[in-house]
């Protein structure tokens, strides 16, 4: 279960206390509900039922006929509609509907109000509203926290740590600056920047077009189309064994090539062991 936000918990506790107090005042309610504090919903429902009951009782007593067979339409509404129909049919409707009905319902609908429309309509259609816009439709509840301070503090700490790391490393280690560039003096070995050393490593195995253009091009292309090829929706590792395997092989392929190119290639770009011949590598 997701963790409930603190302010909601607090609000619930307050409401519960309030209801407990109210039920304490009304003794008959307290006796009927055994688990009052644990069931706030039931408590809220109880007074509503109580309010509803007298209304139904009054309607039954007033109309004198129970209308449960009419599909659950409240009695007083059926009564009203019957009267209205009778009024439209002719004057005798008044007598038919008479009886002991003496509620407030009776007074309003019988004489047509002065402001009726052409066909005696008492309502007008103002607009049609799509149900979605007036009915509260809730999406799945997402557990969220405020960006400030929860995210921003983490970000701030991360930037500080990163700055400190770069600063300290820069104070300790100097960036390389070799002699002035000279096109007539080729260093041995000549190496590309480290992130391209995988490609340079491929050059030892393939034609330059394959190693320098086709393979990296294909690699980038495959990366880009990955989301359109992998159409599974789950992001749980156990459902993605194939994708994870392929990607890990892809990463390891480049990592191994870069490491070999960086540390295991010496003069003439020949294979060497760094512990025998030293490291031929500049960042």
């Amino acid at each position: 279960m997701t963790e409930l936000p603190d302010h909601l918990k607090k609000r619930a506790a307050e409401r519960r206390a309030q209801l407990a107090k109210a039920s304490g005042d009304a003794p008959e309610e307290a006796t009927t509900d055994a688990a009052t504090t644990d069931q706030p919903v039931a408590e809220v429902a109880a007074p509503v039922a109580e309010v509803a009951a007298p209304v139904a009782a009054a309607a039954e007593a007033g109309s004198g006929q129970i209308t449960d067979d009419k599909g659950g339409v409240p009695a007083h509404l059926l009564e009203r509609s019957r009267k209205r129909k009778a009024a439209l049919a002719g004057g005798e409707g008044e007598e038919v509907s008479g009886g002991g009905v003496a509620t407030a319902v009776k007074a309003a609908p019988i004489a047509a109000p002065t402001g009726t429309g052409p066909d005696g309509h008492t309502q007008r259609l103002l607009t049609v509203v799509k149900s979605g816009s007036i009915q509260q439709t809730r999406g799945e509840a997402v557990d969220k926290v405020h960006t400030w301070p929860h995210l921003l503090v983490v970000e701030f700490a991360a930037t500080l740590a990163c700055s400190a790391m770069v600063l300290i490393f820069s104070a300790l280690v100097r960036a390389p600056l070799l002699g002035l560039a000279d096109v007539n003096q080729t260093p041995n070995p000549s190496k590309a920047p480290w992130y391209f050393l995988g490609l340079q490593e491929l050059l030892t195995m393939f034609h330059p077009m394959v190693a320098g253009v086709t393979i990296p091009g294909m690699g980038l292309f495959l990366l880009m189309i990955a989301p359109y090829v992998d159409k599974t929706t789950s992001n749980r590792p156990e459902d993605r064994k194939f994708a994870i395997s392929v990607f890990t092989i892809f990463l390891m392929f480049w990592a191994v090539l870069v490491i070999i190119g960086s540390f295991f290639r010496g003069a003439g770009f020949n294979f060497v062991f760094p512990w025998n011949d030293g490291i031929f590598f500049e960042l």
Partner: protein
Amino acid sequence: MASANGSNGSGGSDESRGIGTKLRARSKKLGEQVGNSQVMNSIFRPGSIFRHGYTDSPRNRSYVVMNSVLYHLHPVKVKRHAVKVSYTLCLGGLSFFLFILLTVTGIFLMFFYRPTEALAWNNIQQLETAVWFGSMVRNMHRWGAHLMVLTVFLHMSRVFYHGAYKAPREFNWVIGVILLTLTLMLSFTGYLLPWDQLALWAVTVGTNMMGYTPVFGGQVRYALLGSKEISGDTLLRWYTLHVLLLPFVIVIFMAVHFWRVRKDGGISGPL
């Protein structure tokens, strides 16, 4: 000790306390006046943590983001799992931060650098030896650049392993791959600028490969180098790419990337 000193000592401390409280009250009043002034209130919008009388409330927490320029980057609320460092490792954010750091240090370096065959290397030498913090800033720029390549790469791996490239985030992944490529290009174009042996020959190796592009390999290489071989023209060309064109392009892609993160529903859900 106070009792041993007697009335004299206690009288002196009373006086100093009086001055202390007065000073404190005065400075507090001054602080309130400054904090409440029109200037401060016009700078810090309601809800800013720097605004006078900020209190920690859900409303103000929302305002901190909603009422500031940060709202362009972050929503008011984020998923709880999204703020866990163990989920993102801050890699995307750190890549962006390193980009800013590189921009700042790069602008500093531009004050001392001329992209010509005759002067480039000398300028770097002077920067190292004769400019205050010159060596330090150059080191930061270089190490920061290598670190950024690494963080962008690791960010991509993190996103893949979380399956975060899946719908509806497919296109943002594509933009991410483009950003990775642009990062590599930025790093590579910067590699030539010191104009030392390391730079020249690393770039020679790299551009020789581009010359093997099918059909128009020769043209690609010529367009990149500005000449048949690496020369001063190449230096000027790559300098412009490095300080203007590529940063301009990458900023646009970054803007779309960050915008899409939010439009696609924030960062991907927990596993």
